[in-house]
């Protein structure tokens, strides 16, 4: 434990998630490193199967069987002790998957909303019951009445009663903009529309005052007008509570709208990271450039939509060297197909995993070998 000094909330170091399946080994996440800062929004973008969702699950320690997680996921949990704020370091990856500690974090400190609002609510329970379930587990009320000292307030807490939980549920549904919240609280999921269900999911996620909200493609299954509403809602709510968001998407537009910083992932690794403004203005990695180039623009005519050639490689048979080299327009033969690039600083607060920017490259053993051959 240490005094609060920096703004790091979750740090992910060298995260690998491996699946031993019948056809071989798949590294769903292959050495990811990034940091989620308090109150900020980190966007993670990438193609299907690049390990975005798996990274999110790793933060909750919910990697499904038979996945094996290695590396470090550290949560810097803030709480008040003796009147002063302290930060507790919790190694999430080392916690028992069904233990009390991780269960208090899941749904309490870190909450999650999912891609499929249609099926993320248990069909036989009402919207309110879902919220109440989370609130009963994670929200505690001070026992002392207002006017007592701050410390005692914090130290003595009790669970919320069913009536209070219901009130919180209605209040949350109101906050997420569900009309007639007092009645909607008793609605079953099938009586709500897709957008309304996602609002309920957000209400569940925010009802416990989390420090981090993981949004795993929360608007992918919704149509664009509802998507805009949900994104607005999330931004508004983030302003009112001090909460970080990890926003996973495959939509560059959504990243631009939501995130402060972004990570571009490809085949289980981050290939570029930095602030959204920097990356959109000056993308360094060829993959990021191609992703940005393939966004159609309004008013633009007679331009063939740019695409990235080829397909993501089979996870059982990854290309040698840089995994992106078979699809890369800047492919350097004898170099990219031999050497695995490291994440290199390309500009202030901007890193890219590309040999074009790798300062160490000329000094590595592989580089010498390539040079000798040439």
């Amino acid at each position, binding site marked *: 434990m240490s005094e609060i000094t920096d703004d790091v909330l979750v740090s992910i170091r060298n995260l690998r998630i491996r699946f031993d399946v019948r056809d071989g080994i798949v590294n769903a996440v292959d050495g990811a490193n990034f940091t989620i800062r308090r109150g900020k929004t980190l966007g993670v973008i990438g193609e299907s199967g690049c390990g975005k969702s798996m990274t999110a699950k790793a933060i909750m320690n919910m990697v499904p069987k038979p996945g094996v997680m290695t590396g470090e996921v550290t949560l810097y949990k803030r709480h008040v002790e003796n009147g002063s704020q302290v930060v507790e370091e919790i190694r999430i990856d080392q916690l028992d998957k069904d233990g009390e500690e991780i269960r208090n974090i899941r*749904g309490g400190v870190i909450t999650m909303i999912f891609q499929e609002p249609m099926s993320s609510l248990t069909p036989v329970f009402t919207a309110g019951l879902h919220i109440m379930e989370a609130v009963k587990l994670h929200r505690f009320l001070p026992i002392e009445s207002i006017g007592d000292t701050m410390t005692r307030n914090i130290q003595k807490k009790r669970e919320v009663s069913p009536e209070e939980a219901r009130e919180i549920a209605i209040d949350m549904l109101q906050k997420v903009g569900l009309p007639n919240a007092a009645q909607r609280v008793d609605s079953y999921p*099938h009586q709500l529309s897709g957008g309304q269900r996602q609002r309920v999911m957000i209400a569940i996620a925010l009802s416990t005052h989390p420090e981090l909200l993981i949004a795993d493609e929360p608007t992918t299954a919704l149509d664009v007008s509802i998507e805009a509403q949900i994104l607005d809602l999330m931004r508004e709510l983030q302003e009112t509570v001090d909460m970080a968001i990890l926003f996973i998407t495959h939509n560059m537009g959504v990243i631009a709208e939501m995130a402060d910083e972004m990570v571009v992932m490809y085949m289980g690794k981050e290939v570029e990271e930095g602030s959204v403004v920097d990356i959109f203005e000056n993308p360094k990695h060829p993959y990021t450039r191609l992703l940005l180039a393939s966004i159609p623009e309004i008013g633009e005519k007679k331009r063939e939509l740019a695409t990235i050639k080829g397909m993501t490689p089979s996870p059982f048979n990854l290309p040698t060297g840089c995994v992106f080299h078979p699809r890369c327009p800047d492919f350097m033969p004898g170099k990219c197909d031999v050497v695995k690039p490291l994440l290199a600083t390309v500009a202030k607060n901007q890193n890219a995993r590309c040999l074009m920017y790798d300062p160490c490259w000329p000094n590595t053993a592989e580089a010498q070998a390539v040079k000798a051959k040439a």
Partner: protein
Amino acid sequence: MVSFLIRRVFYAIIMLILVSFISFLIINLPAGDFMDQKIAELEARGDKSAVARVEDYRVRYGLDKPMLTQYWIWISNFVRGDFGLSFQFERPVKELIGQRLTLSILLSLTTLTITWLIAIPLGVYSAVNQYSIGDQVITTIAFIGIGLPGFLLALLVLYVAIVILNQDVVGLFSREFQDAPWSLAKIWDLLKHLWVPALIGAVTGTAGTIRIMRGNLLDTLGQPFIEAARARGLKSRRVIWKHAVRMAITPLVIILGTEAFPGILAGNILVEVVLGLPTIGPLYINALTTQDMFMAGTVLVLIVFLLLVGNLITDLVLAWIDPRVRLE
């Protein structure tokens, strides 16, 4: 809701009328009737006056009338609660069935309870620990249970119990209690006998139920709402029992209504015959083979009646446990 119930009851009545008519037809299809058998039997014994007496019987039971008339007499009495006379026993069908109904219900309830008590936890374990050694063992036993016919198991139990262990497992009562009035000792004796057929029925019933529970639960556990529940910080056991099993149990409720209810009368007839139980099953088989048509027809109509009641109850229970099927 009320109109739904009224509609369902109305359909059920129509169904019962159709079934009673068709079953009456089918029971009458084979050439001859119960009396022809009786004559042959009596003549073989050299009873010359039999033929004359049999004609009396025919008139008494209405067998000389056209079939439609016979049906009408039977069904109109049936509605009034008079199920006709059994030719074979020369006693009212109602009395014969009534004697055995309690035992049939008791047996099927015991079987069902044992089945569910074993099958649901094992099915849940099997699904939650998919491909574990425990799951493999349960699956293997379940497949043997599905493949092994109940009557064969009953014969094996009889052999082991009588020849090797020298125990009396036939029937539901020991000889001294057979005709004795009900007493605590008799109930104890019944329980001592009841577990054998109940367990045999449960072994065959459990196997299928385990597989159904396992399959459904696996489907449910793959659903996003399970992951969402886990992400709310719920305990694994709570996620499984409150969210997953609750959803996965629906097909079992349907089975309960459509199989267990008619199963009260015709659940494990072969096992009941092998073990010589005083339940309705053997009575029904016997009535069919001897063309004891009022007896056979009554049991058949009761089976269908129970099926319809079971279906109705299933629908109501489903509406209760799953809001999606409720009528708005």
